[in-house]
């Protein structure tokens, strides 16, 4: 059974079909790149998977369980974590506080102990600050005091730190250097063989290098689904990326 099944998913805004009749599946451990020109529906698809947007039609199943109606926080608990295209951080919380929020899986409703009193949680946060190179000033920096690259690393650290079954990365390479991008790949790979990754990117070298499979979206539809080699040779994909693809009826 696939980890994720997307069955005829669509999302309409008034008369506009942002995503239309999209179906695919992702197996555990699979890395899937999603490409397409701007406005192709990639971010809407991510929002549907993450629960930020409800699908107008179709079903999303994780491990065979229909999660279509679940709000974002329950999707997360079901095992779906995500990063955002534009960093979605907490402006008035330090890096340490943000990672603590991301890591805290138990004792969330505790009103008695201090949020920093859990030793194992602190160790995990300390580890993340080191791994993601966010430990300048001991993790006490606010996002506004960080470089753009550090903000992006924090954004990704928040998504990866929960050790999800399915990780959604929306343009993860933006703002990262080539070596930071390689580090990111290693960090994600450390999640293990059971974690599936779906990512959106415009950098074709990255997409070709990271993906087991590539999905191509155009005008809200899934127009191609195949291996990197097959997609690289697909004439329609070439047309889509050159911007001369015909309008789909």
């Amino acid at each position: 059974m696939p980890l994720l099944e997307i069955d005829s998913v669509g999302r309409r805004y008034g008369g506009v079909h942002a995503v239309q009749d999209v179906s695919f599946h992702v197996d555990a451990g699979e890395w899937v790149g999603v490409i397409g020109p701007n406005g192709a529906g990639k971010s809407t698809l991510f929002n549907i998977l993450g629960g930020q947007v409800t699908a107008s039609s179709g079903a999303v199943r994780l491990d065979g369980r229909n999660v279509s109606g679940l709000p974002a926080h329950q999707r997360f608990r079901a095992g779906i974590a995500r990063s955002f295209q534009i960093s979605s951080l907490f402006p008035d919380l330090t890096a340490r506080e943000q990672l603590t929020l991301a890591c805290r899986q138990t004792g969330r409703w505790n009103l008695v102990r201090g949020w920093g009193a859990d030793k194992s949680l602190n160790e995990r946060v300390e580890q993340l600050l080191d791994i993601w190179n966010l430990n300048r000033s001991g993790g006490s920096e606010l996002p506004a005091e960080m470089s753009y690259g550090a903000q992006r690393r924090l954004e990704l650290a928040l998504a990866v730190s929960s050790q999800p079954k399915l990780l959604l990365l929306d343009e993860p390479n933006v703002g990262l250097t080539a070596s930071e991008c390689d580090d990111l790949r290693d960090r994600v790979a450390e999640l293990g063989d059971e974690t599936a990754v779906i990512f959106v990117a415009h950098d074709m070298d990255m997409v070709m290098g990271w993906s087991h499979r590539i999905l191509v979206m155009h005008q809200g539809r899934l127009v191609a689904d195949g291996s990197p080699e097959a997609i690289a040779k697909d004439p329609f994909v070439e047309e889509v990326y050159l911007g001369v693809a015909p309008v789909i009826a």
Partner: protein
Amino acid sequence: MVGVFSRARRVAPVAILVVAAFLLPFLLSTQQESLLTRALIFGAMAASLDLAYGQAGLYSLGHAALAGVGGYTAGLLMVRYEVQSFWLLMLAVAGASAAASMAFALVSLRAKGLYFILVTLALGQMVANLAQQWDFLKTAQAEAVTGIVMPSLGFATIWNPGTVYQFVLVVVVVMLFTIQRIIGSPVGLALRGARENGVRMSALGYDVWRYRVAAIVLSGTLCGLSGALFAFHSGLIAPSNVGVAASGVLVLMAIIGGSGTRYGAFVGGVVVTLLQFYASEWSMERAPMIVGVLFILTALLIRFRPAAASALRGLLRGEASHASA
């Protein structure tokens, strides 16, 4: 061992301040004792409001109504049903305030942003109108519940302005300690997260709506307890104490003191109460204008001198990070 010393170093100044405040009646006149008692109560009320307002970012304009639920519950139980025990009264006040806050949250949190503010304002006005219209909420031909006295603690207590002040100080310190624990707890951190970025909090597995309900219930319950203290001290509770104007003053206290900081709202509550009193001593008519000018100056400071404003906030926030450890 180092941790114990570091904690002692942090706690010592607060402990010294509390002990000094406890001994103040030996230096103050009766009128000053009463004024300080009132200032402490409003400080606690503003700090309670700030749990929702500053920590969770829920800009409520109806919290005086929740304080009013506490005041009316205590007053009615005491005057109509002759319940005199402080402990029973506070238990009933906590229950009634929590229930009212829950209803308040369930209705107001259906709306967002400006609409949330308007719903809280409307709810506050409804409670004030109810207090004005419903005869059950009035005593002895008055427009208020009158005849409220200091309750019994279960042991011989001689109430005078000095002992009332000391008693209120102890209760307020316990309330502030509770608020500090909440702010420093995982729930407090999650409330700030929900204030900063609700979408991201949901994406991290937090049920933001529940946290916001919790913020209003905790804040409203503590406001209710402060409202009961107000009723005990004032001897009455009236519709004017629970209306929109009263809620506005609470918000003003929190903002002037530094909303979202650890002690700011409490300090704001104390300062504004003292200022209101001394301004009205000077000129009863001009007192609201003086408080209004202070509010405008605070707003302008935040707007045009953000560095100075954030330096002041930083003094209070610095302590916030300690309490998490």
